[in-house]
């Protein structure tokens, strides 16, 4: 407690962005709901327009909110204590993201260890298998579902392995960029940050290529049973997070070029870097549990 400094804490004046953001999220939720319903009914509805409008509103909000934030930060309104608030906020946000992935990993483990085994007659479920799903064999990857859908399985050699190496490397390059920032070596910062972004983009491209391969050559699709479900939901949500992380890195790159950030004050960079490491760790878990095991 003793070393905690209490300068005047910056409480921003009223801001329009939160209500704009709430309207944006409301439009997205309402629009996404109707888009999904329209898709199911194969109807051309207005849902997609509402969804797109919501996304536009959110983008405007993000732009305006971060512009205010950056201006305040650059004009020296922020104290060390506020920096702690932001860092802790980001850390807890990442924790919530971990729990989001935990739900899908939980589904993967449950399906593999319990659901598929039981359908195959394990434990005291012999009659389930004999009567309800005769002939079903519990194997993983589940290349034939109890209902009879067949699909291929994604191996771990090749693209997934390359992607793993790329993402792990990018975690190191991101760290080198951070060290460059902390030591005031701007060239090191710009160089390594650029490499990190390129690696992120390569990862995303290869991930796309992997999906094409899975759909066209392996017949492994989102609706081909629990193996395909967990495969696409986990890698898909991870891919979305990589996309978001890459966009954040690009924004950081532009800000670095504009001369933002000091060795002492660079919350936004630090948060982006944490986020990138988090995405990397999730991928390592994915590689082990979805691909290898």
């Amino acid at each position: 407690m003793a070393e905690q400094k209490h300068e005047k804490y910056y409480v921003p004046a009223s801001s329009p962005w939160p209500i704009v953001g709430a309207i944006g999220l409301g439009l997205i939720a309402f629009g996404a709901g109707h888009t999904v319903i329209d898709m199911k009914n194969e109807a051309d509805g207005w849902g997609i327009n509402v969804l797109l409008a919501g996304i536009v509103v959110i983008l405007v909000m993000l732009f305006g909110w971060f512009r205010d934030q950056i201006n305040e930060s650059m004009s020296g309104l922020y104290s060390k204590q506020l920096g702690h608030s932001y860092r802790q906020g980001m850390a807890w946000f990442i924790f919530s993201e971990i729990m989001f992935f935990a739900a899908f990993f939980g589904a993967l483990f449950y399906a593999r260890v319990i659901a598929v085994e039981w359908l195959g007659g394990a434990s005291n479920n012999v009659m389930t298998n004999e009567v309800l799903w005769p002939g079903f064999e519990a194997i993983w990857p589940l290349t034939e579902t109890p209902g009879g859908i067949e699909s291929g399985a994604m191996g771990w050699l090749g693209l997934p392995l390359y992607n793993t190496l790329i993402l792990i490397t990018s975690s190191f390059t991101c760290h080198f960029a951070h060290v460059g920032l902390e030591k005031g070596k701007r060239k090191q910062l710009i160089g390594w940050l650029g490499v990190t972004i390129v690696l992120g983009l390569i990862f995303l491209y290869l991930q796309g290529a992997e999906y094409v391969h899975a759909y066209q050559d392996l017949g492994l699709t989102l609706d081909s049973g629990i193996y395909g479900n967990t495969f696409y939901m986990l890698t898909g949500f991870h891919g979305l997070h990589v996309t978001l992380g890459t966009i954040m890195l690009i924004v950081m790159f532009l800000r670095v070029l504009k001369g933002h950030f000091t060795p002492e004050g660079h919350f936004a960079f630090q948060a982006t870097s944490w986020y990138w490491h988090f995405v990397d760790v999730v991928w390592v878990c994915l590689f082990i549990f979805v691909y290898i095991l």
Partner: protein
Amino acid sequence: MSTVVGEMDQHDDHHHHAPSGVTRWLFTTNHKDIGSMYLWFSFIMFLVGGSMAMVIRAELFQPGLQLVDPHFFNQMTTVHGLIMVFGAVMPAFTGLANWMIPMMIGAPDMALPRMNNWSFWILPFAFAILLASLFMEGGGPAFGWTFYAPLSTTYSSDSTALFVFSVHIMGISSIMGAINVIVTIMNMRAPGMTYMKMPLFVWSWFITAFLLIAVMPVLAGAVTMVLTDKYFGTSFFDAAGGGDPVMFQHIFWFFGHPEVYIMILPSFGIVSAIIPAFARKPLFGYASMVYATAAIAGLSFLVWAHHMFTTGMPVFAELFFMYCTMLISVPTGVKVFNWVATMWRGSITFETPMLFSLAFVILFTIGGFSGLMLAITPVDFQYHDTYFVVAHFHYVLVSGAIFSIMAAAYFWLPKWTGHMYDEGLAKLHFWASLISVNVLFFPMHFAGLAGMPRRIPDYSIQFADINQIVSIGGFAFGLSQLIFLWVVIKCVKGGEKAPAKPWEGAEGLEWTVPSPAPYHTFDTPPDTSKTPPEAQDHG
């Protein structure tokens, strides 16, 4: 850059009075404004969800189908549950946290004031979407607030997509609100306010915020899987694709059980503030209260499958979840013991906040005991999905959580409004609520033990008398809450001037500022190292 500095000056200008007009509420970054909005929102939702309960009780007044068709009845039970959980109880606690935590720890505001406003304003949109879905073709969500698959996947109407996305944004709101609370507590305490000197309301919210951040994302995962199962051909909860409907229940209750503690832990904090104030004695066992709250939160992650004893699990799992559930009664017992010990030989007076707190202790304990009965696996096979369960969770949520929120409202209304509320009307509200809540929920135990299933619009003739009594209690309880609305409006509009500290025995920094609390409190943090609140006896 200059514009920002300009805003800053302007900000300094209106330092101690609120801006006016509608933009004050739309654009605000003030924790008190946002707290008020949360509290009013939750009260409106309480009345909306309550009206749905009235529809349910009206239909159940007699056996047979009278007023609504079964599908609409199911929508009412579903949306009543969703609104009360996510729209009434949780926002009420967040509103109290917003109002009180910065004042209790000597902070100028919440740590992230703009995000705070965002968290609030998402809620009206989320609930507008949820309520609007009731008017869609095919009706709103009708699968129970627990949205078990396959009811929510194979057998649900199109409104499911809207339900899913509305839950998503509610979750975003809750997570941001919780991050704000937890960061405020970790980072904004005044010098001298160590963790073990924080008021218990702050402690209980600290732990609640952790639970929220840990489990709301799991709920998001669960609704996402429901969405893809229904609309995108996945089979997470479909055995034909290798999934399992039981898996839904595991994922849902991994969220759901911590969720029910999210709705009760702040109550513990409230009651731990009020009972010492009116018993005029420091809280008995401060440290044990903190540890007990943390223990309850920790155990809440290990008990989820006690909601699923009849669903089908290996016997080992049934026993594990039974024993873990029973363990929770140990820290809960510590708490009840401490509240009673606080009152022991105190000089107690019975103002309305104290009355609600006392009712809380007794009625919550009844709910706790029926919970203990439900925890016993073999007997749960009889109780499961009967009105006994309905009685149990309404005792902990209505006469538990809601009563504590009422207690908190009466306790802090003078601080919020600057006026004393009408004690006579408030006592009327208390006694009307106390009697009607027991007429409403106590007989449900017997209906449940006799085998009346929940969530069914019709019932066998032998339950007619009990249901009539329950419905009368329900209408009386619903009407009683209008007295509360009256008291609050009266208190906002005027009344006897409240001093800075209207309650003789109350402790805490919030009572060191005038009533009503100025628009900005603690621009510079107070030094609490000399006279820490609640520090007298628990050291």
